[in-house]
């Protein structure tokens, strides 16, 4: 599809397109400063950036909860400003806060959500049962949400977002604060939704591994701008090739080790004990490197593969690493929060 052209604008579309999206707060900085993005139907799009970068503000605009200051966007083929209700009927959202009522049970939440979306009584009950089962909350469904763990709340949040079978799902930092198990379970469900149900997923995260593991394409945002966009592999390849570093058991074998590695690419930066090479063919050549060293009879003490990460991508594009970027944007974050309150 040609750049700049819109996705299919009919009611059957399940894509997202934003052109020059801006959100300014009164007396504050621009939280979102001209974002262009396109998400294809059925894609999982990861929106990666540090705290205060503008991820949640972008999500609030795309889900029609915050009008943009400038720019346009279409979600599911509907304009977010002039066709808000139609956008909302096509999307589901699990926002940054779990947004649950601690006094209601899981079942009561589901009943309320499905009823508000206009599902009939019989359909509400069936849909509720199905979704709660899908997220593993059948047994806890009659317990008040106030007693749920963080992981259970997130799962219920996801189930509620799916109550009306949306074509597009917005997930705003869905695994923040969750343990590894809960996080993995949520990833699996999100991947399944996209793969089997064809749901388009717009996922914001500050976790590199989440974007790496889930997203088909990643957009990296910093200070309200998208600084890089592409598949995780493409983005990392832009930065550099993976490096293999090998330290032989016998320090005297260092030169021979370097000689073997040299067959696979340019020499890399190694410490005083080993040798390194920038793999010309990428990380898949690692097995070949091991076989070559073995064939030469060189015993290796340690072998390490250093692959560029999305943090390296962020560093290359912004001059800061993703972790460091959190501190730097703290001020901007506070300013935005104050401005939002004043607005």
């Amino acid at each position, binding site marked *: 599809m040609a750049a700049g052209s819109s996705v299919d604008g009919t009611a059957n579309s399940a894509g997202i397109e934003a052109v020059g999206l801006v959100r300014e707060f009164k007396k504050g900085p621009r939280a979102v400063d001209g974002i262009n993005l396109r998400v294809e139907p059925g894609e999982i799009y990861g929106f990666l950036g540090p705290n205060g970068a503008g991820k949640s503000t972008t999500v609030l605009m795309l889900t029609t909860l915050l009008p943009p200051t400038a720019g346009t966007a279409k979600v599911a083929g509907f304009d977010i400003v002039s066709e808000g209700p139609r956008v909302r009927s096509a999307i589901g959202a699990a926002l940054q806060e779990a947004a649950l009522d601690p006094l*209601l049970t899981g079942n009561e939440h589901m009943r309320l959500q499905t009823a508000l979306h206009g599902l009939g009584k019989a359909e509400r009950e069936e849909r509720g049962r199905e979704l709660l089962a899908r997220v593993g909350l059948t047994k806890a469904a009659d317990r008040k949400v106030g007693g749920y763990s963080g992981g259970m709340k997130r799962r219920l949040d996801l189930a509620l977002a799916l109550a009306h079978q949306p074509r597009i799902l917005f997930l705003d930092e869905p695994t923040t604060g969750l343990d590894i198990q809960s996080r993995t379970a949520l990833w699996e469900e999100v991947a399944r939704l996209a793969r089997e149900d064809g749901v388009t997923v717009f996922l914001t995260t500050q976790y590199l591994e989440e974007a790496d593991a889930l997203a088909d394409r990643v957009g990296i945002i910093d200070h309200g701008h998208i600084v890089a966009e592409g598949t995780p592999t493409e983005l990392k390849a832009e930065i550099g090739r993976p490096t293999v570093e090998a330290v032989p058991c016998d320090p005297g074998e260092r030169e021979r080790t370097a000689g073997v590695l040299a067959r696979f690419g340019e020499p890399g930066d190694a410490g005083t004990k080993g040798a390194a090479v920038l793999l010309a063919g990428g990380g898949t050549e690692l097995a070949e490197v091991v076989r070559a060293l073995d064939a030469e009879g060189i015993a290796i003490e340690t072998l390490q593969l250093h692959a560029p990460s999305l943090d390296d991508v962020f560093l290359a594009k912004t001059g800061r690493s993703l972790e460091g970027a959190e501190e730097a944007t703290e001020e901007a974050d506070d300013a935005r929060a104050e401005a939002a309150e004043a607005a």
Partner: protein
Amino acid sequence: MNSALTTQVGQLARRSVIRTLRQPAQIVPSLIFPMFLLAVNSGGLKSVTNLPGFPPDSYLTFALAITFMQGALFSVINSGTDLARDIETGFLNRMALTPLRGAALLSGLLAGSLMLGLMQALAYLIVGLAFGAELTAGAGGFVVIIALSVCVTVAFGTIGLFAALRTGSGEAVQGLFPVFFVFLFLSSMALPLNLIETPWFHTVASINPVSYLLQAFRSLLIEGWEPGKIALGFGIAAALFALGMLGASSALKTRLVRT
């Protein structure tokens, strides 16, 4: 379209009632506190009935009207803090993503106030009568007092909703308690208007709508059927309700800026 609105109101009303019933911390103080003050005030101010011109012989009967107003005060705080919590937790955003209408949201939320108002009114009246308060208007008056109390409670509930939507903070809503408590005091709460001697206080109490709400309750308890006073009481409750809903609707439009 109408059936969708009815469903929305019904579901939200159901949630509001369930939430209220599941929060004893909301219900118990609103029942106990006014009745405690009734006991203390009717004991402490008993001698006031000796003042020439004081209407009934029993200060308990006179003071019983105050409990309904204090109950209404709790309605401001309870409805407001519930909605403020929805705003703070993001639950309002969740509802905003549905086809929910603002009018349905506000109406549904007031269901909890209505139910609480009913419980309070029954409790105050039954306990008051059990301890010797008079109800000159009889069985019919009982029903009218309950109805008036429910109307007043719901009307004050709209003020709580307005405060929650305007501030988005439960703490700010709670901060209204002393403000409204004081508003209650600056009325004919403790003495009838004709016995308030301090000129500025008499002026303030005369223009305070709470004085006329109290008058409506007292007319049924002390005098019997005074249609003018009763109608004025219902009229003030209706006016407060209209103003409160107007303010809440306007604040909701700002709070719920969805496109």
